[in-house]
């Protein structure tokens, strides 16, 4: 094949996409620092890194959503282009949310990207359009009803339509298809079909930049891999030159020792503070959970396993109908329905800080005090002095760096915003704290600070339930880990059994 996957000895081939010296600063956060990347013609190039490593910033800069700092350069097929302002024809994107209109059918979605076949006075030639759609989808060997809304299609069919839409009007020349976490929403058995399609794209000479944090996929699919960590490009390898353990330690880095364990003792004998039984929800299929006082219990698993749902259920903030029973035995022997768990008053640090955590229009102080406004004053009047005292006390305690309590929260770095959200939960003086993806979008240094913070809180007697799809988080902090797979508890790890290998294989399951 002409575009053989370039392993070694391909250095003479000029790269199709070259990025050099790419930096991007958001306020006080340096999301990307002098990142450079070459993509060769016809290769599948994986981009890996943990949450907050700068992956999505890099992709969004390429796609023109962010304008990079001065001095960043990029060229496609030898032609320089303006990063963040122009997106050349030869760069195509399939974003994580796929960018489809689910209410419309496949034909309309393709036409929205590639244009309709039109005749006089703008009339759409539907027959022509239909044939074109069939032709495009046939390439990927997908047989789907192009007249049905995509909402009725399977996730992998939607992904195909998104890829086909992105590749429409391809001129056959050199170019790069960027796939951002395409398997995040796919069930396991459909991942193989996606891989076949990615290989089909490559066979036509198109390079693929494949963003993922699932290492097994990279070894199965990619030719080369670039590791991002803390906004920097750590290294680029041929996949054949490295193994999973090596890649994992490059992703995690030395700033975070992969063997780091928060200095918290396991407490299997401590009394149980939270019991949950037979929790069902959108993803959960009957989960039992016991949380002991003073422990940091991890909930781990891949996307779709229910890892991100369970904390919301415990905190009584589930968006979908849930069933099951929950109780805090130290407070009351009576069981609460999972649907009424809100009354247990368990605070949650939500997964998506920007969307669910902070109120961007509010000041630091207003964000912090939001959860206990009722206690700050009498007969409804808000005691501003009491609020200021509380805010000062907690911002000091958690070391929030801000221009002042009145500073808009949006001016803080991600890590400091996260501290404010944690403080908002802690002011409620909770029996236990539930954290969901606590280090998402946080740089490495702050990540360690958050680890230390949670460990310290735990030493002071706080019980913590920490759910994360990031194995590093769970390994670093948790004394015991419950691994979910397909909505059920697949394994429980603790003590010496809690190793990276055991955790990752429990998360992935035997079928992978």
């Amino acid at each position, binding site marked *: 094949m002409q575009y053989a996957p370039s392993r070694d000895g391909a250095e003479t081939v000029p790269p199709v996409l070259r990025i050099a010296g790419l930096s991007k600063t958001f306020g006080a956060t340096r999301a990307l620092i002098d990142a450079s990347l070459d993509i060769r013609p016809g290769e599948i190039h994986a981009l890996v890194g943990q949450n907050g490593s700068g992956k999505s910033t890099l992709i969004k800069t390429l796609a023109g959503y962010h304008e990079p700092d001065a001095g960043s350069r990029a060229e496609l097929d030898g032609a320089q282009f303006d990063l963040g302002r122009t997106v050349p024809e030869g760069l195509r994107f399939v974003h994580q949310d796929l960018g489809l209109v689910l209410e419309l059918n496949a034909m309309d979605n393709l036409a929205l990207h590639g244009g309709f076949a039109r005749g006089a006075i703008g009339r759409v030639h539907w027959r022509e359009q239909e044939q074109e759609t069939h032709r495009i989808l046939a390439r990927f060997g997908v047989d789907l009803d192009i007249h049905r809304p995509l909402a009725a299609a399977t996730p992998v069919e939607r992904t195909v339509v998104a890829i086909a839409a992105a590749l429409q009007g391809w001129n056959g020349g050199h170019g790069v298809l960027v796939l951002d976490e395409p398997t995040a929403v796919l069930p396991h058995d459909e991942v193989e079909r996606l891989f076949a399609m990615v290989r089909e794209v490559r066979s036509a000479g198109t390079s693929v930049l494949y963003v993922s944090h699932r290492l097994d996929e990279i070894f199965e699919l990619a030719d080369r891999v670039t590791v991002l960590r803390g906004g920097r490009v750590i290294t680029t390898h041929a996949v054949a030159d490295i193994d999973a353990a090596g890649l994992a330690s490059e992703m995690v880095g030395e700033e975070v020792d992969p063997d780091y364990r928060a200095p918290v003792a396991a407490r299997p004998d401590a009394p149980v503070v939270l019991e949950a039984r037979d929790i069902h929800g959108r993803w959960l299929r009957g989960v039992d959970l016991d949380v002991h006082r003073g422990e940091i219990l991890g909930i781990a698993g891949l996307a779709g396993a229910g890892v991100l749902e369970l904390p919301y259920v415990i*905190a009584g903030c589930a968006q979908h109908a849930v069933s099951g029973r929950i109780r805090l035995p130290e407070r009351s022997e009576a069981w609460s329905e999972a649907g009424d768990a809100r009354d247990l008053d368990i605070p949650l640090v939500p997964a998506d800080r920007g969307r669910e955590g902070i109120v961007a*229009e*509010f000041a630091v102080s207003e964000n912090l005090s939001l959860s206990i406004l009722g206690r700050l004053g009498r007969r409804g*009047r808000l005691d501003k002095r009491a609020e200021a005292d509380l805010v000062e006390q907690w911002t000091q305690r958690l070391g929030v760096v801000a221009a002042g309590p009145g500073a808009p929260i949006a001016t803080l770095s991600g890590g400091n915003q996260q501290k404010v959200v944690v403080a908002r939960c802690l002011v409620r003086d909770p029996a236990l704290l539930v954290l969901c993806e606590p280090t998402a979008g946080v740089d490495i240094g702050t990540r360690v600070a958050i680890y230390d*913070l949670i460990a310290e809180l735990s030493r002071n007697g706080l019980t913590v339930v920490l759910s994360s799809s990031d194995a590093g988080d769970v390994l670093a902090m948790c004394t015991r880990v419950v691994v979910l797979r397909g909505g059920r508890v697949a394994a429980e790890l603790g003590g010496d059994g809690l190793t990276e290998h055991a955790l990752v294989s429990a998360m992935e399951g035997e079928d992978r």
Partner: protein
Amino acid sequence: MTLTAVPEPVTEPAAPERAVAARTGPSSAQRLARGLAFDRIGAVYVWLGIIVLFSVWAPQTFPNLDTAKQILNSNAITALGALSITIPLAARVFDLSFAGVMTLTGVAVAHLIVEEHVPVVAAIAIALGVGVGIGVINAVVVVVMRIDSFIATLATGSLIAALVTMVTNEVPITDARLGGTFAKIGQTSVSGITLGVVYCAVVAVAIWYLLEHTATGRRLYATGFNPDAARLAGVRIDRLRFASLVASGGLAGATGIILASTLGSGSPSAGTPYLLPAFAAAFLGATQLKHGRFNAGGTIIAVLLLGTGVTGLALANAPSWAGDMFVGVVLIAALALTGLQRRTSAR
């Protein structure tokens, strides 16, 4: 819970001089400068500019105490309407039915007094109940049935219009019975200032207190800005949205009764002309004082600015379309400026 009572720093603040500790507030001079900044109360400066402009343009008629009183009196109802929708708007809930509620309670109170011979006080109480009842219906449609407030209150507005026609048959209700005690509610004036202005001041202070100095007010804003975050922080967002619509129903109802008393009749189109000016004032007001938060003070400033402009144009014999033109231009300019400000400060 066993967290230590006196918290100790878990991590040393990375940069103590930048840490939040700095509670030594700004000096009073700084606070004054901040308080008078153009981006905070720009509309006040524009208002003063307008007063100067019309004083020069129409020196015979504009710059005198009577004009000032006329501006206050004729805008009290607009201000009350704008204040009614300020509470739901703080929670990002639109109540487009408030003008219909004004009409309905005005018509209802007139009908009860004239046709049913109900005593004035009882008629007012029933009409107020109607306003609150419509608020509850709005709240059920928006909060319980989860229909977008914009379209939901447009729909209930249509239901209200049907009720109004049912009661009035599209003929204004006028009668001598509306002259006595009932007329005093809106028509009493103290040295040229009608009671409407007083009600308006009371309501403005009450809403200012609610939004600025109570936990409920803070929660309303949080609900408006980021309902997901508010909910996860323990705020009962549905309850707040519900209450905000009931409040606007009640307030609009009261406003409608005052309007009927001022007009001396129950007119089937009394509320309609207030719909757009009230929303214009509320949105213009949100650009003042509190940077993007709907607030009572800003709303009052906006009503004064718009009312002065419109009255001034009329006194200066400007063509009759000039008033509407003025409102439109000011509103677009204010919102565009605020948007620009936000984009540049976000950089």
